[in-house]
């Protein structure tokens, strides 16, 4: 129906100000509605890549476009538009939730994009009910469990109705039940997802397609189940299934 990909990265390269190069020409396309796992060992440049997606890190070489719009960190107006369309859920929910109550935090994004009053209220309620946290709307975030905070963090981004949802290590620090609850929520969402993780079983559970970022390039791009059968290939990128798992 819609042929414009949610995300298209062309030959993206990046070196830190100290000269250390993190990305060496990344190419990736994510179609609308796809759920893709971005795998890679620690230090592969995953976070650097993520921060390019909404222009927090300015593109040095190559290009990133979201829903057909090029991310240009120098163009303030287009950047605002991009940040409404790319929803990043950061790893530590305490970094993401900074307002005094859950509801205020969820309405922070939509407020910045100009919503007020009843409409703001509706969007906030809607996002909170999608992650099953509506009854906690007036609680301060530090009274919630870690899993609940992570779910609220997802809601803060959903409230902006993003074109693509980017999750940085969504399963980290979650107990098995919270982990399953979050998976159920993510599966129920009708949105494009790019999930950055090295939790391979979680990737298999949620994403039909996986790409491996290794050595600053996309080294592999395959259906998740197929990729996970290639144990030796995974091992060359310092990835392995946990003990007892078989794909």
């Amino acid at each position, binding site marked *: 129906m819609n042929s414009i990909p949610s995300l298209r990265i062309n030959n993206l390269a990046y070196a830190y100000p100290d000269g250390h190069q993190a990305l060496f020409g990344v190419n990736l396309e994510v179609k609308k509605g796809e759920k893709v796992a971005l795998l890679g060992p620690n230090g592969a440049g995953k976070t650097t890549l993520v921060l390019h997606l909404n222009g*927090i890190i300015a593109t040095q070489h190559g290009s990133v476009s979201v829903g057909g719009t090029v991310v240009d960190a120098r163009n303030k107006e287009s950047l605002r538009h991009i*940040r409404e369309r790319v929803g990043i859920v950061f790893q530590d929910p*305490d970094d993401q939730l*900074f307002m005094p109550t859950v509801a205020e935090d969820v309405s922070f*994004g939509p407020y910045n994009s100009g919503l007020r009053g009843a409409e703001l209220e509706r969007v906030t309620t809607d996002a909170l009910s999608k992650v099953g946290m509506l009854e906690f709307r007036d609680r301060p975030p530090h009274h919630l469990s870690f899993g609940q905070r992570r779910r609220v963090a997802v809601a803060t981004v959903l409230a*902006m109705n993003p074109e693509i949802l980017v999750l940085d290590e969504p399963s980290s620090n979650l107990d098995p039940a919270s982990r399953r609850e979050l998976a159920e929520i993510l599966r129920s969402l009708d949105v494009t997802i790019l999930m950055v993780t090295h939790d391979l079983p979680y990737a298999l559970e949620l994403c039909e397609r996986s790409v491996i970022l290794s050595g600053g390039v996309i080294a592999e791009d395959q259906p998740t189940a197929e990729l996970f059968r290639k144990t030796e290939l995974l091992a060359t990128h310092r990835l392995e299934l946990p003990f007892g798992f078989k794909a």
Partner: protein
Amino acid sequence: MSALLFVIVVVATPTQNWLAYLAFFSILLLLVRLAKLPYRTVFIRSLVEIPFVLFALLMPFFGTGTKVDFLGIELYEAGLWAGAGIIAKGTIGVITAIILSGSTTAREILGGLEKLKVPAPLVSIATFMLRYLSVINDELGRMKIARESRGFEDRGLKSWPILAQTVGALFIRSYERGERVYLAMLSRGFVGAMPRLSEDKSTNWLVALILPGIAATVSLVTGALS
């Protein structure tokens, strides 16, 4: 705001006007009742006042001027009045603050500051402090546990360098967290203005003036009577 004005009126009332003070205390008791605060809690919290009370009790023994004879002890009249004044004014101030904090959540106080047109950056700083105080406190707690798990004992002056390092590490961690929070804010379209904490923009000056108004009237009327 109402509380602040009330305290100012109380402090401005001369100590000799003891009738007014009686009235102030009754007003406060009524407020405690209205706010449904347990008297016990109010009493326990008002114990912070004790050092000032002790100081006030000493005042009649030192001073100059007229002396009065009380149970065979010579006391200075000016000191007596000043001491009584400190106790009365102090207690009223403390109880007022307790009623405010007991009946209003920290959030509502922040919303109130915003309504009173306190500069937005200050309100934001207070809001972030409210949110992150517990996070930083937890972090400090974890660092304490980590220290002690590796055999650290707090042994006076010798352990100060370690404690100083802890404070330094906590500062760096908090600073880095600040940066990450800012990135998260940017990612959700932050362009420099925080949302207002309360949608309600009207400030009910009339209601706010009731308490100080009553106090001022009482003060003037009783002042005129005596």
